[in-house]
């Protein structure tokens, strides 16, 4: 039977089919739905951990206890989990352990497009990479088998296109769960002090050699011999793109992208005249194949940056082979449409105020990052999860008096819990003067409303203790703590100014639930209207950057300076009333 599934649903299914009942992760596009989907299966334990490092450690602990386990995260999440990652490679996993890295070529929803295949090589861990939705399911299952066979963590790498595409999938049988858990002791293998780690280090190299041998006969490293003129070596989604446009070339499709099957690659190279290596982002396969002394065409014709599509591959090869590329026409200049804060978003009021205060606002990862854009311009930096607080502190220390009352860090509730707590403690310990604003919208909004330790619910939907953010901040030693509703512009401005003027670190907690968060939704307010006669065309309300508010030009009349007036599109306005607060002419009601 075939079922239409997304790549992420398929991965969750594959994990379940493998008999796995234990998973930990942290939400992050494009990986989020894997955990949400897995959590819906019967009899599983699945948790949102506060961050990816914790998630991986939880999964390692479960594996050492004999339970097959999954750790799931987006590409940059692996950076957070990198510390345990490199050493679990030494210890091995006891039971099976698979780590999903969901990469984001083209940065659809990320701060960088790092190629996490490098982590496989760096940490000496095998990596599988599916090229479509069916393989997403099948490879998830295979990854657990390889982990069991070689006592190694195994990476399953997805990309946004695999995770977020949908296609018919043939389901497999579900391996029944077998409880193999017990407490076992093995200090030489699990206590990575130098003396033990030196010995395990040797085992890692032995395992890698065994995996190289395995790769030569691995069923998902496949040769498809067609036209012997041109051979393509590729993996992942690039394979599907290339097959779309060049079905007649010969292919070496690598289901396992690390370690590589050297003999198989040499064999393929001997059977075709010319080889293209097609891969998004880094020349990961290309460099290794070139190091084998095999001549291939790769990044000299394919881009290093952004994701591919069938057209990009077709044009690059056709150009090289002197065929005509597909024409592209330009029709009209089209206004760019970046994402924007939603109508009624609780962040809009706060960043409207911050943008006007002319502070340096160190931002963080969340929807609020979007307020860096005009007209709000309320954020001045964004690096990674949790960076806002450390950066604000560092900047304030470096600026000394010049930075007084001028440096702010802003961070969302989920991001604060993820990695904002140690840097806030550091601000207290090292006597900071910066202000931190925690934007508590009651959920992990950007990835689609996931639970976290302050929401009161677990991923499995059970009620649990809810972190009291204010009490935590106080326990870390912050003495100046204020709680505001960022929707009230006047008090928001006053309190931020007061806290900026104080000595020592301050924390403001801006509390208002995400407007899309159904659990917290109380009422549907009536949309607002602008009276065009009362509106004097000052454009202040447009400074909120609220999607329903736009500008209507009018013909100039004698004796009037008015060039137009603002209008609200009632179909999108949700009646938050922020615009009413900024209107000086009482034109909005």
């Amino acid at each position, binding site marked *: 039977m075939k079922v239409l599934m997304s790549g992420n649903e398929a991965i969750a299914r594959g994990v379940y089919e493998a008999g796995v009942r234990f998973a930990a992760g942290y939400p992050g596009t494009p990986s989020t739905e894997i955990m949400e989907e897995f959590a819906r299966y019967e009899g599983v334990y699945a948790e949102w951990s506060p961050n990816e490092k914790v998630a991986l450690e939880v999964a390692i602990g479960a594996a050492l206890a004999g339970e097959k386990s999954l750790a799931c995260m987006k590409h940059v999440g692996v950076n957070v989990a990198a510390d345990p990652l490199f050493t679990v490679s030494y210890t091995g996993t006891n039971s099976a352990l698979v780590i999903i890295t969901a990469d984001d070529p083209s940065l659809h929803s990320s701060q960088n497009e790092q190629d996490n295949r490098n982590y496989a090589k760096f940490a000496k861990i095998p990596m599988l990479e599916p090229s479509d*939705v069916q393989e997403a399911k099948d490879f998830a299952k295979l990854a657990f088998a390889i982990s069991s066979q070689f006592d190694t963590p195994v990476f399953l790498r997805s990309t946004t*296109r695999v995770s977020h*595409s*949908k*296609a018919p999938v043939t389901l497999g049988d579900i391996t029944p769960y077998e409880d193999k858990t017990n407490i076992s002791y093995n200090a030489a293998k699990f206590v990575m002090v130098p003396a033990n780690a030196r010995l395990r280090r040797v085992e890692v190299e032995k395992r890698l050699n065994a995996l190289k041998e395995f790769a030569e006969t691995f069923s998902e490293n496949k040769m498809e011999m067609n036209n012997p003129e041109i051979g393509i070596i590729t993996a992942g989604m690039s394979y*599907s793109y290339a097959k779309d446009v060049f079905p007649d070339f010969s292919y070496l499709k690598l289901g396992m992208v690390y370690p590589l099957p050297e003999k198989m690659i040499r064999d393929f190279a001997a059977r075709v005249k010319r080889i293209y290596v097609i891969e998004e982002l880094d020349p990961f396969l290309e460099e290794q194949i070139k190091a084998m002394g095999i001549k291939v065409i790769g990044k000299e014709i394919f881009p290093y940056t952004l994701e591919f599509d069938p057209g990009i591959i077709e044009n690059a090869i056709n150009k090289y082979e002197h065929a005509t590329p597909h024409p592209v*026409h330009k029709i009209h200049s089209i206004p760019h449409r970046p994402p924007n804060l939603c109508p009624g978003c609780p962040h809009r009021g706060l960043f409207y105020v911050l943008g006007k205060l002319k502070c340096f606002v160190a931002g963080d990862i969340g929807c609020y990052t979007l307020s860096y854009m005009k007209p709000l311009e309320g954020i001045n930096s964004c690096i990674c999860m949790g960076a806002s607080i450390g950066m604000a502190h560092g900047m304030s220390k470096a600026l000394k008096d010049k930075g007084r009352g001028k440096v702010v860090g802003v961070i969302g509730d989920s991001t604060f819990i993820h990695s904002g707590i140690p840097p806030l403690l550091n601000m207290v310990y090292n006597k900071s003067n910066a202000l931190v604003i925690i934007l508590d919208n009651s959920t992990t909004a950007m990835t689609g409303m996931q639970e976290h330790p302050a929401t009161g619910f677990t991923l499995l939907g059970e009620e649990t203790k809810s972190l009291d953010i204010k009490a935590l901040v106080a326990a870390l030693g912050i003495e100046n703590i204020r709680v505001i509703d960022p929707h009230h512009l006047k008090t928001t401005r006053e309190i931020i100014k007061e806290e900026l003027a104080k000595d020592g670190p301050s924390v403001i907690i801006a509390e208002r639930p995400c407007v899309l968060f159904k659990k917290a939704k109380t009422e549907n307010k009536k949309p607002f209207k602008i009276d065009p006669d009362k509106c004097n065309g000052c454009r202040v309300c447009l400074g909120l950057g609220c999607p329903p508010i736009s500008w209507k030009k009018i013909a100039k009349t004698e004796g009037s300076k008015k060039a137009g007036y603002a209008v609200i599109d009632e179909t999108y306005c949700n009646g938050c009333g922020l615009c009413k607060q900024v209107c000086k002419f009482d034109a909005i009601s």
Partner: protein
Amino acid sequence: MIKKNPVNIIITGVGGQGNVLASRVLAGMLVSAGYFVTIGETFGMSQRGGSVMSHLRISRQSVLSPQIPGGRADIIIALEPVEALRVLTKYGNPQTVILANEREVYPIGVITGELNYPSSQIIKEKFDKYSAKNWFIDATSAAVKLGNPILSNIIMVGALSATKQLPIDRRAFQREIKKDMTADKQKINLAAFDAGVGMI
């Protein structure tokens, strides 16, 4: 039957307009009709009011990659007019047909006055010039009449069925929404579908 093999469809709009649901319903109907459907979607951060696109590739015999190559869309369904133009520029060809909603949603750069939004007259002219056939309908007003602007996505699906570009009809739609919608929701969505049919 599909007119071409494969048929490449792009559903586009602004994050929050119900693009993903429209693509899911349409894909569901085509899967039930026995076709291989591959969908490529953009969501995540772009759901916050950015441009969004779903690529649907309908084939008689196999799964394809989830991205349509540039210049090779057969049908463009746009929940917002300028998004139709954006997709037409990259994916259109002289044989492309377009079904677009007339109601503008202004991007932030237009709100701040830095960018211009093309007039609906210009958009219509470009459609006429660069596509084989186009339908430009006010789905949002019809949706508001039914009580909720979000229904414009289903109105577009209804209108699409009336254009006879794909093997989908009211019965297939009814069967599809029965799978996961409550009786109340089915009723309003069917009304939206019918409203769309009436607009072609």
